[in-house]
């Protein structure tokens, strides 16, 4: 990185490096020394990669589970597979179609190995990915020793988790 080369010079002569700017911890009253700024930049980078990894893992896991569920749905119901036929998709998308919409019914559907239960499980993994991402954010800002941002992210996590409990799932 360019910042590493410049850091050996006298701090006053350094032009502000755009890549390093904005990486100082929030609420900081004093300027960071070049060495501190470099360590900070490394930490910030680790946090970015951790959050990116959480999102990627969540996305891949959910796609795999959804695909398996879809495969099971078609495997159990041969008539779904026809390209032409009397069976319309609208039987599956009307307001009276039944599918799991609570953890209890989801558990039953999964126990019976129903494809639609597996799909719903995959969708739930997808829904929980942003929540997990916020949780990792809390830990990450604490690791950066950035108290204001840790508290802000913790508040978001509490609201998110609270919304799930208020929904009564």
């Amino acid at each position, binding site marked *: 990185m360019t910042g590493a080369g410049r850091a050996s010079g006298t701090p006053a002569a350094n032009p502000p490096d755009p890549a390093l700017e*904005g990486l100082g911890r929030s609420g900081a009253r004093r300027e960071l020394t070049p060495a501190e700024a470099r360590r900070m930049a490394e930490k910030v980078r680790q946090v970015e990669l951790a959050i990116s990894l959480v999102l990627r893992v969540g996305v891949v896991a959910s796609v795999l589970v959804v695909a398996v569920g879809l495969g099971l749905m078609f495997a159990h119901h041969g008539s779904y597979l026809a390209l032409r036929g009397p069976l319309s998709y609208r039987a599956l998308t009307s307001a009276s179609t039944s599918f799991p919409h609570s953890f209890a019914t989801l558990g039953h559907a999964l126990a019976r190995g129903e494809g639609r239960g597996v799909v719903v499980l995959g969708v739930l993994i997808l829904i929980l990915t942003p929540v997990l991402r916020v949780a990792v954010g809390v830990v990450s800002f604490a690791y950066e020793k950035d108290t204001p941002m840790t508290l802000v992210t913790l508040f978001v996590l509490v609201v998110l988790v609270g919304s799930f409990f208020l929904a009564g799932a």
Partner: protein
Amino acid sequence: MTPLDFVVSLALISVAAGVLGSLVGLGGGVVIVPVLTLLYHVDIRLAIGASIVSVIATSSGAAAAYVRDRMANLRAGMFLEVATTTGALTGAYLTTLLPARFLFVFFGLILGYSSFATFRRRHEDAPLTASNDRIANYFNLHGSYHDLAEGREIPYKVVRTKLGLSIMYVAGLVSALLGIGSGALKVPAMDSAMRLPMKVSSATSNFMIGVTAAASAGVYFVRGQIDPIIAAPVAAGVLLGATVGARMLGRATSKTIRILFVVVLVVISLEMLQKGILA
């Protein structure tokens, strides 16, 4: 149309929705809801459930790349989520208080105005180099990103955080009340109010919409609005599309993204006005 035709065609449309959503920071709901209701004649409640799935899929699929490539402003995004999640939570309990028709007309007009404001800024894209905003300085919300189209690192400063927070609160409120438009107010809040560069605004909006949508997804799941045969092709297709779109944002020019966003915003605004006036 048999279930197989439905799943395959919907998955293909969802790929396109994911590409568009990840480029303009809106999630795929803009495409998914009209396609499901008008083309497939699916019940609106199930279409909105699918839209929530598509928003989360766009967000997580694209943001994985935007965060890694430092296109999204992680700190600003996480900071502003305080306002969007609070807004989403209050919105869930206001649903019965205000008539939906009035809300559709009201927000249709607001989005119409913000598309005009976003369009007007198309020639003055230079990011700010200084900020005296106390909140932005305290939480250090400023940043920089590498612009592949211009081939250089572009630093920027953030201003008017209070105004940004207020718009973000309304954005969370709207998405919970109407089930659409969560990103439509987020991008103008960051671009026009807080002066983040257009591409950063879009990437950061993408990063944020998943969390706003997740705050109301629990309710949709319990109400039985997430139908697996619709959600499966939407989730898979949108995730693929968002991954592709995230590779395109870096190379596109800010102006292209801005114009694309304005066009989509005009469409949403007309859609809302139509729902409010004709419904």
